[in-house]
């Protein structure tokens, strides 16, 4: 299968949506080309705004434009949007419930060689705390298109954590059932072991399940493209029957899906062992993306190994 670049998919989808919806404006933080706004800027210069390297101001501008009926789609590299502009996102977008679409380019370990300043390993934790904000974390080009379409439909603030690496989709688009706010069962391996994941880790999780299946071990993989609102019902469904629950994410331990699942289990009174595969707090190893996934034990093969180790410890 020919892998599709998620940013190119984003660029084409935004261009397409912009054709029919004149309220959409693209807001760039010196991110027009690298962030997938290039085609939109070229096609609709009057609906394109280059703010420059000023993420906080870009969010403020977007919030005010949204109050005037525009649908700003603001793109910046993930940590500079979610962390530098956190307060603007919280105050001017979240509490004000402005119709702004925040697109954080290259979440997780995407900028794997560039060091801790460019990695976004706390972004999901931060965005989950913003009032009224829908948090979407696509993992491949198909999900990116789905998320952008849904984001424009929603009359309110939406955050999209944009992946950078092209990943193998778990199935053909037509065979997938993507639904806003609902988890997506990608591997139905029964309820003995269930792995919850999102974003680029989804492809690794599916690979892990395949490796395990070849070894005679069944594990379900559920993809949560929507992290907020979270499909807690689906989590409870699997967790209430599973012997082990796993979470896989390109994120630090605090505040990501691992924390969210732990919350659900605790609140629901479900007692099941939970193991979270993620990036350790403060980790700042660099290197090629795939090598880094292996280093942290969150690649498909590493996850298969770790799951097997946990299950065989019974």
């Amino acid at each position, binding site marked *: 299968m020919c892998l599709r670049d998620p940013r190119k998919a984003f660029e084409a989808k935004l261009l397409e949506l912009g054709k029919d919806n004149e309220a959409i404006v693209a807001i760039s933080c010196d991110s027009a080309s690298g962030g997938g706004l290039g085609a939109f800027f070229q096609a609709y210069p009057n*609906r394109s705004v280059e703010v420059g390297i000023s993420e*906080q101001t870009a969010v*403020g501008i977007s919030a*005010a434009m949204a109050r005037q009926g525009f649908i700003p789609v603001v793109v910046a590299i993930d940590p500079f949007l979610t962390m530098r502009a956190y307060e603007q996102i919280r*105050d*001017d977008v979240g509490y004000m419930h402005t119709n702004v679409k925040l697109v954080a380019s290259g979440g997780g370990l995407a900028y794997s060689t560039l060091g801790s300043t460019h990695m976004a390993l706390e972004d999901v934790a931060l965005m989950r705390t913003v009032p009224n904000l829908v948090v979407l974390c696509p993992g491949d080009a198909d999900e990116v298109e789905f998320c952008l379409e849904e984001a424009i439909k929603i009359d309110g603030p939406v955050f999209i954590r944009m992946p950078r690496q092209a990943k193998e989709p778990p199935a053909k688009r037509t065979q997938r059932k993507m639904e806003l706010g609902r988890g997506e069962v990608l591997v139905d391996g029964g309820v003995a072991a269930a792995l919850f994941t999102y974003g680029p880790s989804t492809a690794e999780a599916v690979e892990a399940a395949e490796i395990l299946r070849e070894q005679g071990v069944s594990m379900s993989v559920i993809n949560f493209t929507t992290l907020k609102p979270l499909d807690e019902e689906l989590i409870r469904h699997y967790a209430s029957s599973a012997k082990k629950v796993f979470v896989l994410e390109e994120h630090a331990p605090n505040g990501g899906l691992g924390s969210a699942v732990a919350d659900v289990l605790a609140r629901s009174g479900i007692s099941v062992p939970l193991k979270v595969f993620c990036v350790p707090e403060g980790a700042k190893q660099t290197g090629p993306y795939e090598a880094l996934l292996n280093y942290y034990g969150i690649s498909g093969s590493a996850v298969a190994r770790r799951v097997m180790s946990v299950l065989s410890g019974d």
Partner: protein
Amino acid sequence: MKPFDREALERSAFHIRSNIVRTIASNGEGHAGGALSAADILAVLYFAVMDYDPEDPVHRDKLLLSGGHKCLALYGAMVELGVLEPELLKTYNQLGTLFPGHPDATKLPCLDFSTGSLGHGLPLGCGYALAARKAGLPYRTYVLMGDGEQGEGTNWEAAAFAAHNHLDNLVAILDENTLQINGRTSEICKPTSYESRYAAFGWAVRPVPGHDVGALYDAFAQIPLEPGKPTLLVAKTTKGKGISFLEDQQKYHHWNPDAGEAARALEELDARAAERGW
């Protein structure tokens, strides 16, 4: 703009001040200093300059109170305008009030945006000004900033953006009362004048006496000062203006009046009202 009427504008400014002081006196606390320094500016804006319709948030002129702690001046202006009932001011800071200690536009749709954290107003102002241009709407956007607030870097991001994009429908007013919580702005961080800094960023800048409604009116009447440039009026003001013992005093940024202070302030207001027949 409406025709200039000094008597009416000074009366409106006085009533805004009266609303500020009476609200604090009856509720026990509030950001007095900055609200009082901004009263004349808001009076001139809302009663003479702005095309303001509380029912039409899209087409009206916009006002961002970047220093949201000055909200009592804004609430006072809304009451004086007849947009809000004066009785509501009694709920200030009470549970469920529409008048919290920083303005919340989701509770009061007559306001344009919630503010409170400093340095948000000018970026928002850029957004409103840009939206007007993109939509072909004639409204103007006014941002009332403080001088201590100029320490926030977002002001300088937005200053560059506004000038670069020739937003001459954007008007910032810097309420330069020369005091911030910890002392004089000149002693904390003010390496150059605000006039020179904004001018260097490409703004059309003019200092104006900030308690002279006539001078303020004249300055607003000439906006944009230079076509193609955003305008900054540096309003030279006195913190706590209008109540003698509050004026130019660092400690009255936030005021918790005791019974004696409250009575003294109200006496001054009454005397002023009697003197002017207000």
